[in-house]
């Protein structure tokens, strides 16, 4: 293992300030986004983790009460950095936007009472997406006395199937708002998204459908001129069996006698019970079961190998995170963050 690199250099994404994380449902994109935000905060830096789907996934992951529309510190990185979190909600974003640009105050609340805010945020997803990405844009650009307020922003974005449409705000708004601030705003957001400061990372697992969606997603992002970042392969299982054994297992040619001898050596032959007569059959059943399980395991490993090749064809930096059989808790998020740093993602 190499020594831990200093956090501000030698990563694959130097110069990137906005990390957008997408993935098919069920691949763990929120977990990866959170781990990345922690990893990027390491070494006394400050990151903002945003969600936009009204799902409170961040709060659940960090085991804190639901997040309001307000930046809150939710975690401290191992050597002193801070992770802030924000759940972006379109209505609140619109009211904030009106306040900022039009100093509406009471009129803003009246608009809400009349249903105008609902109207504007639901009428066209394009407008809603501009408001959501607009808030991310604002946070990314915000500056304090000593430079940018956040060193990096991680966006837990909509799933792979919808990501290009979500980010391609310009395209979405063009037919609806032909001129005016929303249109202009969309233009500014687009130029940040297409700049070298932004990347879109794709989270997947080694199964057919998620890998297929990752390929489709990468293709669509490129088509829209949006920067494809890394591929994070999540929930990877450690290789348990050597290649030679896998090959034999796949062809149903494992040496049953050898397995049996091993079980007996391990004391699973069932000394007392074996003597009772049906111990032999019981042991034979166990051998059958283990051999059958190994066969199925080999099929899965072969499938995963195929999927790895498919992903390699995308020719993007690829990171792997292990499957955590016990589920994700706060402690394991730190472990995942460390793994991402070791692999150069942060």
């Amino acid at each position, binding site marked *: 293992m190499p020594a831990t690199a200093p956090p501000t250099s030698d990563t694959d994404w130097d110069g990137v300030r906005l990390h957008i994380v997408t993935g098919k449902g069920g691949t763990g994109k929120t977990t990866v986004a959170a781990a990345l935000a922690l990893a990027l905060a390491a070494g006394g830096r400050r990151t903002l983790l945003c969600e936009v789907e009204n799902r409170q996934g961040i709060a659940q992951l960090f085991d804190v009460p639901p997040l309001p529309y307000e930046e809150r510190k939710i975690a401290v990185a191992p050597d002193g950095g801070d992770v802030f979190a924000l759940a972006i909600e379109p209505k609140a974003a619109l009211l904030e936007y009106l306040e900022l640009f039009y100093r509406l105050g009471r009129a803003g609340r009246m608009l809400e009472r009349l249903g105008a805010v609902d109207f504007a945020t639901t009428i*066209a997803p394009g407008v809603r997406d501009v408001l959501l990405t607009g808030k991310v844009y604002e946070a990314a650009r915000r500056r304090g006395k000593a430079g940018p307020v956040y060193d990096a922003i991680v966006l837990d974005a909509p799933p792979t199937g919808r990501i290009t449409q979500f980010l391609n705000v310009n395209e979405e708004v063009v037919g609806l708002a032909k001129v005016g601030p929303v249109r202009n705003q969309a233009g500014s957001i687009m130029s940040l998204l297409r700049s070298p400061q932004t990347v879109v990372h794709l989270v997947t697992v080694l199964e057919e459908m998620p890998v*297929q969606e990752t390929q489709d997603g990468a293709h669509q992002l490129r088509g829209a001129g949006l920067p494809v970042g890394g591929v994070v392969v999540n929930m990877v299982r450690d290789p348990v069996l050597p290649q030679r054994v896998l090959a034999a297992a796949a062809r149903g040619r494992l040496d049953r006698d050898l397995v049996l001898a091993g079980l007996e050596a*391990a*004391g699973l032959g069932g000394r007392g019970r074996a003597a009772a007569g049906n111990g032999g059959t019981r042991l034979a059943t166990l051998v059958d079961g283990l051999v059958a399980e190994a066969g199925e*395991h080999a099929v899965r490993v072969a499938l995963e190998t195929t999927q790895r090749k498919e992903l390699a064809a995308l020719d993007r930096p690829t990171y792997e995170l292990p499957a955590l059989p016990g589920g994700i808790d706060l402690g394991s998020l730190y472990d995942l963050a460390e793994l991402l740093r070791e692999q150069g993602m942060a």
Partner: protein
Amino acid sequence: MAATARRSRPLDVDALLDDPTTRVVVCCGSGGVGKTTTAAALGLRAAERGRRVVVLTIDPARRLAQSMGLVELDNAPRPVKGVDTTAGGALDAMMLDMKRTFDEVIEAHATPEKAQQILANPFYQALSSSFAGTQEYMAMEKLGQLRTRSDAAKAAGRDDEAWDLVVVDTPPSRSALDFLDAPQRLGSFLDGRFIRILTAPAKAGSRAYLKVVSVAVGTAGNVLTKILGAGFLGDVQTFVSALDTMFGGFRERADRTYQLLQADGTAFVVVAAPEPDALREASYFVERLGSERMPLAGLVLNRVHVAIAEDLSSERAAAAAEDLDEIGGHVLTAGLLRVHADRMRRRDRDRALAVRFTSAHPSVPVVEVPARAEDVHDLEGLRAIGEDLAKG
């Protein structure tokens, strides 16, 4: 065995599918749990058991779609090849094209001239292709159409053109509840106060009120115009008033959709994977169906990890593998024991999650479908899933 005591009531899928009064089966659940595959497997099984079935899928994975012969997305049911029809059944399948379905609704209800005007409206284009809820709404619209078409064929004596069972897959929404709420949301949005005021200020009532409202709307309108640009509100106004004269209210349509879901002969099958999030969604959905008096058939717990050598616990297997490492020379057995220990851990975790669901909802029938190494992409695979579903 201890396991039987805490086991839920089994879901009898064959009884559900064979019952001639079952006319609609709705498969719902959160995204990524295998709803489409479940819907297709249920449809195939029902057809091969003698029913005339149409499966309405929303967004099938490419290879699953190919397995049912769904190569083109033309928004109409097509016969599925390779189905065993000896029991007298048949299987058709279709993929929903939501924009096309919305266009058809417009075309069916407006004069050609007016329809043209609506279809060209930019607001309509945004709404019909991307409003969060259009897909759900159009799935229901399509379900209604399939039912109507079937009833008409039957009435005309053309029984071979009628379906007696519609199996519906629901859109891949983030939350299972979106499906129930979307038609209402779209309906009330289009029928919303602000749109009413914008499009028909004269309806607002007394003159004094009108004046206040006009000022407010004026301000609101001005602000929206400033933000979104001139022309935007104009487009909205044209669109909504055009729709308004056609339908006499979207809300009414949404209500009718809702009634269809509550009708006798509709059965909901909630699909979940053994993951905390998916099961939490399934719980919400089960509770919601109960409070809306919608008929729940049961829960399909998909992709459950099972083990073959079930008598050997993960702990014992892992310990034995370690012992072998120490003894040395039994690499093969140690490896196999580790594969088994891993599998048992997954099995135990899935079981614990299933038990948690069952203790919260003891009356909900459940069927578990074992996880497979490979995705399903042919009728044979769907048939195998159908078998697992029927094992209850």
